[in-house]
């Protein structure tokens, strides 16, 4: 019962986010006059000629070469490509961990391509949620405390200190770990650890969830469960970007962007269609099915 209620709360938060969306989209459209963008959709990621060059002088390597891509709100997109294709570089830039050499990157309508370290840190805190291949949980720290971590660095204090625990508990319940709040990472299975990581990624209410090989360290069963959970989140409106080399994982997404030699090689639509309007009833049952 509790799980249902919390999951519901969670869904409401998400749908609440979508209410303000029209305004933002409007300004984005005006500023950039992009005809391809419909007035009803809001772009979460919009890059133009994103280029990253490593090295100096004569020995330079162009890791990303004029990459332009768009990801709408509610989309679930996979980026694939062989090693050296520039997908890590792209992920780092899209994840605001580094900045492009040239080109622009609008994240949720905000140009983040020229921000400094401190501003990027704030963007990561406010807008992004990361899920890593190796979970990256703090060792010897309870699941609850791990999930709270982004709030510690939130300078806007959108969640008051006294609500951190409640909020973290909600998140853990939403990913099906309501009974594991006090467990430390070493007491959890890989799949459970990755769920903690997902709860952590979601707690600060990001506009984009970035998964860097999120199932890479998991067996196929746990991997499937994690993907189901991500699909669920996507079903409730969360925009998700996954970097993977596993075509089976990429199959879960709506769109797969293949990179090759720093450029977008192909873009494949998986035929899942564009994101559906949020349906609370199905979400909860889906979440429960993941749980079981």
């Amino acid at each position, binding site marked *: 019962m509790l799980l249902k209620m919390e999951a519901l709360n969670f869904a409401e938060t998400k749908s609440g986010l979508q209410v303000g969306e029209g305004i933002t989209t409007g300004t984005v459209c005006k500023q950039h006059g992009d005809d391809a963008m419909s007035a009803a959709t809001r772009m979460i990621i919009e890059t133009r000629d994103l280029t990253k060059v490593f090295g100096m002088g004569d020995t330079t390597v162009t890791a990303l070469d004029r990459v332009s891509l768009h990801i709408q709100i509610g989309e679930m997109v996979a980026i694939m490509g062989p090693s050296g294709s520039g997908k890590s570089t792209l992920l*780092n830039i899209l994840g605001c961990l580094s900045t492009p050499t040239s080109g622009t990157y609008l994240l949720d309508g905000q140009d983040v391509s020229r921000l400094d370290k401190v501003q990027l*840190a*704030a963007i990561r805190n406010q807008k992004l949620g*990361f899920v890593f291949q190796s979970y990256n949980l703090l060792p010897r720290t309870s699941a609850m405390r791990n999930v709270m971590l982004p709030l*510690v*660095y939130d300078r806007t204090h959108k969640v008051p200190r006294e609500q951190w625990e409640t909020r973290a508990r909600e998140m853990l319940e939403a990913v099906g770990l309501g009974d594991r709040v006090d467990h430390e990472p070493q007491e959890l299975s890989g799949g459970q650890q990755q769920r903690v990581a997902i709860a952590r990624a979601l707690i*600060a209410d990001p506009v984009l969830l970035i998964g860097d090989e999120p199932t890479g360290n998991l067996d196929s069963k746990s991997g499937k469960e994690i993907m189901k959970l991500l699909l669920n989140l996507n079903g409730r409106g969360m925009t998700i970007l996954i970097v993977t080399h596993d075509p089976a994982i990429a199959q879960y997404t709506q769109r797969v962007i293949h990179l090759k030699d720093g450029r977008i090689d192909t873009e494949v639509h998986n035929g899942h269609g564009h994101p559906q309007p949020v349906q609370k009833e199905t979400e909860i049952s889906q979440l429960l099915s993941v749980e079981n």
Partner: protein
Amino acid sequence: MNPNEVLRISWEAIVKNRVRSLLTMLGIIIGVAAVIIMIAISSGTEATIRDQITSLGSNLVFITANFTRNGPQRSSQLTSGGLVYSDATAIQQQIPNVAGVSVEQGATETVQAGPVSLSSVAILGSLPDYLSVRGMSIASGRYFTLEENTNHAKVAVLGSSLAQSLFGTSDPIDQSVQVGSLRMTVIGVLAKKGLVGDMDYDARLYMPLQVVLHYFIPSRFARFLGQSVRTIYVQVADPSKMDDTIQQINLLLLQRHKVSASSPDFTITTQQDIITTQGSTTAAFRNLLAWVAGVSLIVGGIGIMNIMLVSVTERTREIGLRQSVGATPSDIRSQFLAEALLLSLVGGVIGILIGVGGAYIFSAFGGMRTVIVPSSILLAFCSAAAVGAFFGFYPANQAAQLDPIDALRHE
């Protein structure tokens, strides 16, 4: 990130690595404890010396004879013989602000009482003022009078342990003792004084100065030179006029000895001079110890820096993760700086406890007097904090400058 969170995170990091944290703190703990114990011991020694000096009477001026002769041609002159007994009387009679004058002259004799015979007993000839000047008191009987001194009365006063050795439990008053060839009557026993410096005040036999000068130090030149004495003790009545009194004594003696002020044949020192001299010795000692403790603190600080650098390397992925969820370089820096600071402060507190406890143990079981100086605790604590901040800064900065991408990939 608010300071509470910074402190909490750092505290948790320390507690999670309890053993390592403790080992890291060890240098600081030892340094701080050493500072406190060393200062406590040297202050204790200083206090002991001061007490010993002042226990021999207060507001004292010591006049000692210089044993430098101004050449053989003057050796027979009356004035070059240093201090004489009459100098003491002159000081007592002519200088105002003098509470008492004591002249001491020692000798060594065999002392016998009934069947008990003690050889090489220290004998001290003095004046009646001796008791008040040297801060001694009588336990039973009385001290001798000025008349007895002038009349060479054969009376003796025993130190407490000497009385015990000679007479056991029986009352020595009015008993007779044989001192060398002289039969004397015991008129008093002094209260226990104990060992001051290396002088056992309780094992001595006290008698009028004149008796000592007359019977135990027969001087061939006494007729010409007067009765020479080594030291005259003057107790000043009003310590605020100490300097004036010293000047007056100086002038009087220069006049009496007919010597120039540039080459006097005596030296005047005050108790304060002696305390200062002794104090400067212990201060030098204390400074040396403080440097040793300081070096230990620096070594402790390097230990902290070392472990913090290891910790930064070990926790590179954690740093990367924190950065990925929004920690800024300054967040990371404050976290590691706070950790170093906490490590050294906790180490400092443990060190203070050990230092205070150690100082107590030293005084309780080591027979060493220790005085815990509050400022030394403050000093130790502040230096621990300074060490933490200083040696924590470099590792913290290293951590803050990590690139989030590299940090996240770190294996």
